[in-house]
């Protein structure tokens, strides 16, 4: 009963000093808005990384042509690839490997009905769709037979389909890739952004043999810039990695102590690292914002202390007419809580509005989750209690006589 009335008392006290109440809440508002915004940006980045990882394919290795030099991978783009189609077949035959696709990447201009579009061209095999877990939106992927025969067929990504065909159905249409005509036999499902921020749907995949004969220079024949391989499960990844190293060293006749002419990378592990980096970054953003929340809390404590001093006589009067110490404690605690929760509510609105603006005008992905809203409200509540308690206790501890004498 008294507690309910004290909310009214608090409201009355806060509305009689509107400007001061507003300034006191400002710190809280900014703190909450910052926390919400930072968490939204951090979680947006995390969500983007997560979907990029999911779109990458699972348990994935990339085997690159080239030597490991001290300090990391160096692939001289001019030099001839060291990996062969046969290497890819050998990797695929390993027990822990599901599929392995040799890839010959490049770029080219596509032309269809007077429209042209520059995009990535991947020469590969049907295994590519398997290792990348890449379903078709329409049509089908090309077959092993197409690869053997060097068929002029192409599978296109969503962006290419949109740019060249618009609403038209691309299946069965002939496009020109560097002047060579290819029949579109399939459209890939959308995958969105990759981890490095590229649009994965902006590509054409053709049989690797056709790519090398009709599109790229013939010096690449039967060789792959890299091979993508999928392990049977997360648990077999380590064994698979050793097996790939072993089989390639054998096939390339690399003796003990000699440098490899290939590099095996566990893409899934790299992705995990990227994910945890993003997680740490978003935590850091949140933590920095949380500091401003604490500063807001200190602001509330500061003003509450001033308020207790100013209202000493009021406290004395209240005690004289029957307020118990805990009634006075509650009165000031509720005032601090009201300040921090109203500040929190306005801060929430600002933060969510800010997140919307960031997404709309800065193009950053944001995610305001119920968990972050709940957290902001919870933390504001705790800050209100924590920083309100000391001034409230001071008020409750006043001696009635002394307080009545105060001016």
């Amino acid at each position: 009963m008294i507690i309910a009335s004290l909310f009214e008392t608090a409201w009355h006290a806060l509305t009689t000093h509107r400007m001061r109440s507003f300034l006191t809440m400002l710190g809280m508002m900014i703190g909450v808005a910052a926390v919400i915004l930072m968490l939204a940006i951090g979680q947006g980045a995390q969500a983007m990384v997560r979907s990029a990882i999911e779109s990458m394919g699972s348990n994935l290795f990339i085997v690159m042509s080239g030597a490991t030099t001290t300090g990391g991978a160096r692939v001289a783009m001019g030099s001839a690839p060291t990996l062969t189609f046969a290497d890819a077949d050998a990797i695929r035959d390993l027990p822990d490997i599901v599929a392995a696709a040799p890839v010959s990447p490049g770029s080219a201009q596509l032309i269809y009905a007077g429209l042209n579009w520059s995009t990535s061209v991947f020469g590969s095999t049907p295994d590519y769709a398997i290792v990348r877990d890449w379903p078709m939106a329409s049509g089908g992927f090309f077959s092993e037979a197409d690869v053997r025969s060097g068929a002029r067929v192409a599978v296109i990504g969503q962006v290419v389909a949109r740019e060249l065909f618009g609403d038209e159905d691309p299946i069965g249409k002939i496009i020109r890739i560097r002047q060579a005509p290819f029949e579109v036999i399939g459209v890939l499902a959308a995958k969105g952004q990759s981890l490095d921020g590229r649009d994965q749907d902006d590509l054409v995949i053709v049989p690797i043999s056709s790519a090398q004969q009709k599109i790229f220079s013939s010096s690449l024949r039967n060789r792959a810039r890299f091979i993508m391989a999928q392990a049977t499960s997360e648990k077999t990844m380590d064994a698979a990695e050793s097996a790939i190293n072993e089989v390639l060293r054998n096939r390339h006749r690399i003796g003990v102590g000699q440098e490899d002419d290939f590099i095996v990378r566990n893409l899934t592990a790299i992705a995990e690292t990227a994910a945890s980096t993003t997680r740490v970054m978003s935590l850091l953003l949140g933590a920095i914002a949380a500091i401003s929340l604490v500063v807001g809390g200190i602001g509330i404590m500061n003003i509450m202390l001033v308020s207790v001093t100013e209202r000493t006589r009021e406290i004395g009067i209240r005690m004289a007419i029957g307020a118990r110490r805990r009634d006075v404690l509650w009165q000031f605690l509720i005032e601090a809580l009201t300040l921090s929760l109203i500040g929190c509510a306005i801060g929430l609105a600002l933060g969510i509005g800010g997140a919307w603006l960031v997404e709309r005008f800065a193009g950053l992905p944001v995610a305001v989750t119920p968990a972050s809203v709940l957290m902001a409200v919870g933390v504001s509540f705790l800050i209100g209690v924590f920083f309100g308690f000391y001034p409230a206790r001071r008020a409750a501890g006043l001696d009635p006589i002394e307080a009545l004498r105060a001016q």
Partner: protein
Amino acid sequence: MAEFGQLLIEVLGIEKDYPTGAGVFQALRGVSLGIAAGEFVAIMGASGSGKSTFMNLLGCLDRPTRGSYHLHGQDVSRLSSDQLAALRNREIGFVFQGFNLLPKLTALDNVALPLMYAGMGRQARRQQAQATLNRVGLGDRSHHTPLQLSGGQQQRVAIARALATRPRIIFADEPTGNLDSETSRQVMGFFSQLNHEEGITLVLVTHEADIAAYARRRIRFQDGRVVEDVAIEAVAA
């Protein structure tokens, strides 16, 4: 111990020390007296003689350094601060020289305040506060804030606040000290009426003989001691 039952207030050898820079100052040096229910007592004495100190002890706002104080046969020194607050809330009404109203609250809300601490609901306490304001003749001023009221009206609001929880005792420390003589007469007339008609026990401090004349008993303080305690002939009221 038979006297206890009749006595509302019983103080025995009460002393109050105030620590000061130059050692301890004894504001009360052994006061013993009893006040029965329904009495109207005026306390007089020179400035600094300990009147307010004594009133604060009687009003349970402060505790004596030594000596005992029984209110209603109950040893006040044994009560917790919460119990004292409850006592101040229900049994005792206070009227101060400086009114001590909360300036931001309306007359009605000021009067309703002790009822809030008594745990009464919002609707009920507003009704009771309004009724109490009516009793002091300020029913039409319930939505004025203290600053919009004259001194006499403010003191009447303060009296209404003291009466709101229907206490049996009212302590008034120089209630007319800030009022002109006409307003003082009104306020004292009202106090007399409360004492006569409702049997409320009244203890008031005053410097003025004509104010003290409203009471039936006069106690005079000097240097922290009672030097006179006499009955006064009832004035025509």
